[in-house]
C-alpha cells in the first residue's frame, strides 16, 4: 500500500503533524517524499545500479579477475600436454573449472565492502525487501564477473582446439550456468562474512554446491561432440538456474542477517 505523496511545499511529516522548520530552511523546504518500502523491482534496481556504478569506477579490479581466468586456463596445457586430441577432451572441463575458480575469487567482494563501510547495516535495516536487494547485488556481480567469462571463454577455447560449434555450446552453457554460480556463491559469501579464513572456507562451502552445475555445464560440450541432443542438459541447467533464482536470494538474505548479529 502506498501512502499518498505529500506536497513538497508543505513541511508536513508523513504522520500529519506540522513539522517545525529547521534552521536554514526556506518557506519552500525541499522535503524528500517518502514511500513505503516493499516493492521488489525498485529494490533490485537500487542494488543493481549502485553496484554496477561502483564496479565501473574500479575497473582495474575487474580486469584483474579476467586476467586470472586467462592465466588459469593457460596453465593446464602447460601442466599436461599441448597435444590437440587431449586438449580437445580436456578443454570444456578446464574452461568450466577456471570459471568456477574465478567466481570464487570474486565472491568475497560481494558483501565484504558493504560490511566494512557500514552500508550493509543500512541495507539490512532498509524497508525494502532484503532478498530483492541481495538479488540486485548478485545480478550486478554476475554482470561484472560471470558475463565477461562467458564472452571470453570461446576465445580461450580456441587454445584447446575446440571447433566453432562446440565453442558456441560452451558459451551457451556458461551463459546459463554462471548466474547459478553467482547465486549459490552469494550464500557462501554471506555465511562467511567477516570470518578470518573467509576465502578458503568459502571455497570449501561452495564448491560442492557447484558440482552439479559443473557436471551438466561441461558435459554439454561432450554430449554435443558425441552427436547427441543437448536440449536435455541445457534444460537441466536452466532448471537449476530457476531453482537458484527462487531460493538463493532468500537463503543469502537470511545468511546476511545472521552475519549482522
Amino acid at each position, binding site marked *: 500500500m502506498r501512502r499518498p505523496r505529500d506536497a513538497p511545499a508543505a513541511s508536513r511529516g508523513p504522520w500529519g503533524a506540522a513539522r517545525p522548520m529547521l534552521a536554514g530552511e526556506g518557506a519552500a523546504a525541499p522535503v524528500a517524499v517518502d514511500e513505503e518500502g516493499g516493492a521488489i523491482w525498485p529494490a533490485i534496481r537500487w542494488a543493481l545500479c549502485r553496484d554496477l556504478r561502483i564496479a565501473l569506477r574500479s575497473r582495474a579490479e575487474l580486469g584483474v579477475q579476467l586476467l586470472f581466468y586467462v592465466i588459469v586456463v593457460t596453465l593446464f596445457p602447460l601442466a599436461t600436454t599441448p597435444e590437440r586430441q587431449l586438449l580437445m577432451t580436456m578443454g570444456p572441463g578446464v574452461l568450466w573449472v577456471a570459471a568456477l575458480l574465478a567466481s570464487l575469487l570474486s565472491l568475497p567482494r560481494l558483501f565484504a565492502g558493504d560490511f566494512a563501510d557500514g552500508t550493509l547495516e543500512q541495507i539490512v535495516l532498509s524497508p525494502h525487501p532484503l532478498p530483492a536487494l541481495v538479488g540486485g547485488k548478485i545480478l550486478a556481480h554476475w554482470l561484472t564477473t560471470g558475463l565477461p567469462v562467458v564472452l571470453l571463454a570461446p576465445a580461450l577455447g580456441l587454445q584447446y582446439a575446440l571447433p566453432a560449434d562446440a565453442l558456441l555450446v560452451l558459451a551457451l552453457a556458461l551463459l546459463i550456468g554462471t548466474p547459478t554460480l553467482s547465486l549459490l556463491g552469494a550464500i557462501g559469501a554471506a555465511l562467511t562474512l567477516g570470518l578470518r579464513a573467509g576465502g578458503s572456507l568459502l571455497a570449501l562451502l561452495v*564448491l*560442492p554446491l557447484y558440482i552439479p552445475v559443473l557436471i551438466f555445464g561441461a558435459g554439454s560440450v561432450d554430449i554435443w561432440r558425441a552427436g547427441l541432443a543437448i536440449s536435455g542438459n541445457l534444460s537441466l541447467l536452466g532448471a537449476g538456474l530457476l531453482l537458484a533464482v527462487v531460493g538463493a536470494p532468500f537463503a543469502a538474505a537470511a545468511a546476511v542477517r545472521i552475519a549482522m548479529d
Partner: protein
Amino acid sequence: MAFNWYKYASPAAFYPLAGRLVPWFSWAAAILAVLGLAVGLGIAPTDFQQGDAYRIIYIHVPAAWMSMFIYLVMAFWGALALGFNTRLSAMLAQSLAPTGALMTFIALWTGALWGRPTWGTYWAWDARMTSELILLFLYLGVIALRNAVEDPRRADRACSVLSLVGAVNVPIIYFSVQWWNTLHQGASVSLTAAPRMATIMLSGMLIMALAAWCYTIAVSLHRVRSIILERERGGAWVGALPEVCSG
C-alpha cells in the same frame, strides 16, 4: 517420546535425560553389532561371484546409509533451530556432524577396500562413491563453519542455513554425479552394485544399520552433553552438577 516434549526442550532438562539414555543405546549398539557381524561374517553364505571379500559391505552399506540419514537429521534440527530459535536443536545438530562425517569416512574407506580385491582398483569414480566423497566435503564444510564462527549463536544459525542448503542439494548432486557416471561409462554394470541379495544378507545389513543408528544416537547424546556443559556454563544448574563440582 510422545509425552511432554517441551519439558525437555531446555538444555538443563535434557542433560540428565541424555545421560540416562546413553548407556541404553550403547548397549543396544554393541549387541546389534555383534549380532550383525555374526550374520554377516559367519552365517551368510559366501558370494558366488566375489568370494569372501564382499563381506565388507556389512559395514560399508550401513555406514553409507547412516551418512546420508544423519545429514538429513542434522538439517532437520537446524531447521528447527532457525524456525523456533531453540538452543537445544542447534546443539543436537552440532553433535551430529562429526558422527556423520565419520560414517561417510568409513563408507569411503570400506568402499575402497572392497573395490581393490573385487575390481582391482581402490577408487573407480563410480556414482555412489563420488557422491559419498562430496557428502564428506559437505560435512567438513559444516564443521569448518562451526569452528570459524566465534559467537555460538551466530554459528548455530549459519550452520543451520548451510545444512539446509546442503540437504536440498544432496539429491541434485547425487543425480548429477549419476548422470556424469553413465555418460562416461556407458550403460555398464555399476561398480558398487551389491551382489544379489539373499534374505539373510539383507537381514545382516539391516541389523548392522540398526547398530550404526544406535551407535550414532549414543555418541551424539554423549557429545551433546559436553556441548551443553560448555555452552551453558554460566547457568547455575551447571555449577551444581556433581561432575562439575570439584569439592
